[in-house]
């Protein structure tokens, strides 16, 4: 999985600018599915046909990643920024970031800030090493988006990388496509856009597909690091079946089916109860008159940082769990 994940996590694809990651995924899967197409918002949709009378199951993982958008370029060529998705200014300090055209910059803050409580993104900037605005504008236009740099490594059975949220979900779906073979149910794999700016792509995709049930595959936080907030999720204890988050209460049918699949097949699993956050299930479940939806979440440390960390076995077990789930009668 590491080779695939390296390619996926390394690809550029902040919300609204998913061309590169979408093309990469399409190349990986197009020969292995019955149909693949892109919808009006840019969601990549791949269909594996089932048997007659089978159900239609939608699995969704988002392609987009968080980023920093150039909002204003000052006379000296320093680039002022806003956040695309959830970026904590403390996390951004000192990061190396890269624009779509390869231009690399350093994220810094105004030195007049003496108390870090005053730190906000609008007092930070990207320095791309240019002397003035004219030269900067040749490299970067307002509206261009930079993403964190953060190489993908595997170590002690764990993956560390930028954009594991949610390229690990994309990797899981791609592995499933490769391994699943024939299936009684039709499975529609959706690689969604613009999740990080408010779950924007998944709802319209679900409206178009109108599946019988849907499962989002995304990451979730953990409670297993020093002095962290209590949360009953740990790395390496299995993929988490979402019970609820701030946007969705999982449909009982979907949640129970996932738990049953895990039990029957001796796949380790955890239960996710979150009071914050949301994933694509949040807009899928109210689309097209209502679609029973839930989520399989991969425990992930250091969310929205360039060093997100997940356990390899959780990802492998998620593939197994979903493989069993799509065969449910």
């Amino acid at each position: 999985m590491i080779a695939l994940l390296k390619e996926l996590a390394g690809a550029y694809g902040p919300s609204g600018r998913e061309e590169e990651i979408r093309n990469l995924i399409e190349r990986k899967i197009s020969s292995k599915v019955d149909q693949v197409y892109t919808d009006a918002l840019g969601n990549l949709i791949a269909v594996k046909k089932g048997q007659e009378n089978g159900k239609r199951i939608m699995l969704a993982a988002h392609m987009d990643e968080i980023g920093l958008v150039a909002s204003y370029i000052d006379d000296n060529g320093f680039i002022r920024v806003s956040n695309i998705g959830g970026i904590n200014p403390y996390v951004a300090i000192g990061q190396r970031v890269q624009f779509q055209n390869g231009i690399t910059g350093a994220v810094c803050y105004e030195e007049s800030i003496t108390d870090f409580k005053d730190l906000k993104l609008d007092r930070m900037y990207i320095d791309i090493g240019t002397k003035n605005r004219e030269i900067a504008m040749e490299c970067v236009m307002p509206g261009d988006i930079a993403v964190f740099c953060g190489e993908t490594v595997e170590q002690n059975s764990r993956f560390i990388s930028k954009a594991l949220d949610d390229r690990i979900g994309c990797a899981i779906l791609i592995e499933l496509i490769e391994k699943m073979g024939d299936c009684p149910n039709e499975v529609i794999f959706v690689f969604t856009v613009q999740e990080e700016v408010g779950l924007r792509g998944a709802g319209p995709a679900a409206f178009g597909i109108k599946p019988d049930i849907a499962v989002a595959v995304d990451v979730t936080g953990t409670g297993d690091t020093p002095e962290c907030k209590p949360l009953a999720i740990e790395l390496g204890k299995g993929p988490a079946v979402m019970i609820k988050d701030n946007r969705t209460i999982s449909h009982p049918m979907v949640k129970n089916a996932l738990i049953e699949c895990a039990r029957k097949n001796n796949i380790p699993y955890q239960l996710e109860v979150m009071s914050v956050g949301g994933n694509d299930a949040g807009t899928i479940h109210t689309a097209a008159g209502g679609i029973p939806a839930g989520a399989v979440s991969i425990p992930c440390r250091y969310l929205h940082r360039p060093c997100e960390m997940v356990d390899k076995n959780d990802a492998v077990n998620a593939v197994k769990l979903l493989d069993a789930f799509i065969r449910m009668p």
Partner: protein
Amino acid sequence: MDTGTLVKQLCEINAPTGYENLSAEKIKSFFNPLCDEVYIDPFYNVIGYKKGTSPEPKKVVITAHYDQIGMIVTGYEKGGFLRISHLGGIDTKALLAREVVVHGREEVYGVIGAKPPHLLKENETGRNVKITELFIDTGFSDDTLKEKVEIGDPVSIAAPVVEMKNGCVAGKSLDNRAGVAALVLILEQLQNVKHPNDIYVVATVQEETELFGAVTSSYSIEPDLAVVIDVCHGDMPDVDKSQCFPLNRGVPVAVGPAFHSEYTNALFETGKRERIPTQRCIEPGDPGTEAWAIQVSRFGIPIVEVCIPLRYMHTTAELVSLKDIEAAATLVARYVSGDIIKTPEDIFQA
């Protein structure tokens, strides 16, 4: 009709958000002579349709909301006074001592009372006033007032719209009658142009509450592309340059994740080709405009947004430049008259 007169006439119409039924016919009368068909939908969106020349036309929608922020009567107070609440995001500090019109059984003029500084208690100074502390003075007796005004009647601010000597207009409801004026100008420009696609101009309702008019009209029309015209903040002293736009320096076009990058680039190209200057308006997330609602309607609808810089938003002294309205209209008219609609395959396989 010159642009100044058009804008003045549009601004004098009162359409408090949620009560657009008062004025839908008036808005319709501006579209009537310029469209193949004009209709008012069940939500009071006013929709003008212009047929395209292509045998297989696509649908392009251009929206601008025509509702305005206002107030609503919540109760009576002895002595001919009315208590009020807000319709949309009204700024109470811009309400004090204003003249208003209550849209009751008949139109009733009143003023929003403001306690003189001499009578303010200590805890009433040094803070913004709450809308529940405000009242309208109508001068009627309690009994007469109850005959004329009911709880739930909407209230508009009565303020003149003034054409200034410098090519600007100032007054109430320019957010977003400036955009509606642009719709009319677009229709005028399209009169002698062959455009392949069907074009729908939609003056929408209830933007100031929850973008509801855009939600319902985009669901029913199901466009292939939506162009949203709304106001953005004009420049003024003591506001960061990155958060507002100078007047008469180009049409701000929205750029951000929500805005379709191919169609937005095509809009900038149109600007270059037609020598209409543009500015880039960066929207990292929810822009707070109808675009946000339209984008996720049905199967998902590609959106672009064109803005008109406006100073002092949500006050009775909103100020815009007529040239900016005309430039926005010309940019959009030239853009939508081209063969611009592409399939997702054309766009995403490039």
